[in-house]
């Protein structure tokens, strides 16, 4: 499935869309599209990324891509980004993952699988416990502050 909103064009002809082929500019363009679609474009992307890379729950999606996927294990990924050819590498990494996410999301039950995988990953983290602010009791299907069965 092709990426929506002509993102394949942004990927292959970046400077025609955003002027400069820089990672943060491309990420900001995608964030703008996401805002214009009331966050629906990237819905589930962070939840797809976190189990894949094994961390980054507190980071924005573009930072997860940069730190964990474009330059894994690099002490200073932002400095690395400035070296020749690395913006192109990071931008391609961004689109490769976005495309893979997009394909899974639009598979049958894709979005449900993404969130179930994210929930399973959370439950494996030592810090994720009932006192954690975003805790969801998925045994009783009770969201913190809302009893089983949901509101009402």
């Amino acid at each position, binding site marked *: 499935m092709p990426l929506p909103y002509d993102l394949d064009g942004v990927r292959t002809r970046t400077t025609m869309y955003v002027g400069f082929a820089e990672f943060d500019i491309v990420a900001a363009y995608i*964030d703008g599209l*996401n*805002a214009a679609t009331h966050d629906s474009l990237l819905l589930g992307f*962070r939840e797809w990324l976190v189990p894949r890379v094994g*961390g*980054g*729950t*507190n*980071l*924005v*999606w*573009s*930072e997860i891509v940069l*730190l*964990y996927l474009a330059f*894994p*294990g690099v002490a200073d990924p932002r400095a690395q980004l400035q070296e020749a050819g690395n913006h192109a590498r990071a931008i391609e990494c961004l689109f490769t993952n976005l495309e893979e996410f997009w394909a899974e999301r639009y598979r049958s039950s894709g979005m449900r699988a993404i969130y179930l995988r994210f929930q399973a990953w959370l439950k494996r*983290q*030592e*810090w*994720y*416990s009932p*006192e*954690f*602010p*975003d805790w969801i009791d998925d045994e009783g299907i009770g969201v913190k502050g809302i009893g089983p069965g949901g509101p009402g």
Partner: protein
Amino acid sequence: MSSGCEAVAKELQRIVGGKPVTITAARGARLGGFAGRQPRWASHTVVVSRGRVYDSYTGIQGMLIEDYKKLWQFPGDLNFGF
């Protein structure tokens, strides 16, 4: 590699007690600047105990809530939950 604020909060809570709280943005997707840096956080989990905030920045000495909020670039646009 992750800033791992959740794990840090858990560890700090074992030492100072209190409860973990997650700071989120009331608008936008990022929390904005913190302590003169742009950490590109979507959220940040801290521990709040007896009027003080604890995270990897404050360490176990913590910081008064009022002072901690001043570290943020746009405190008025964040949901602190404390």
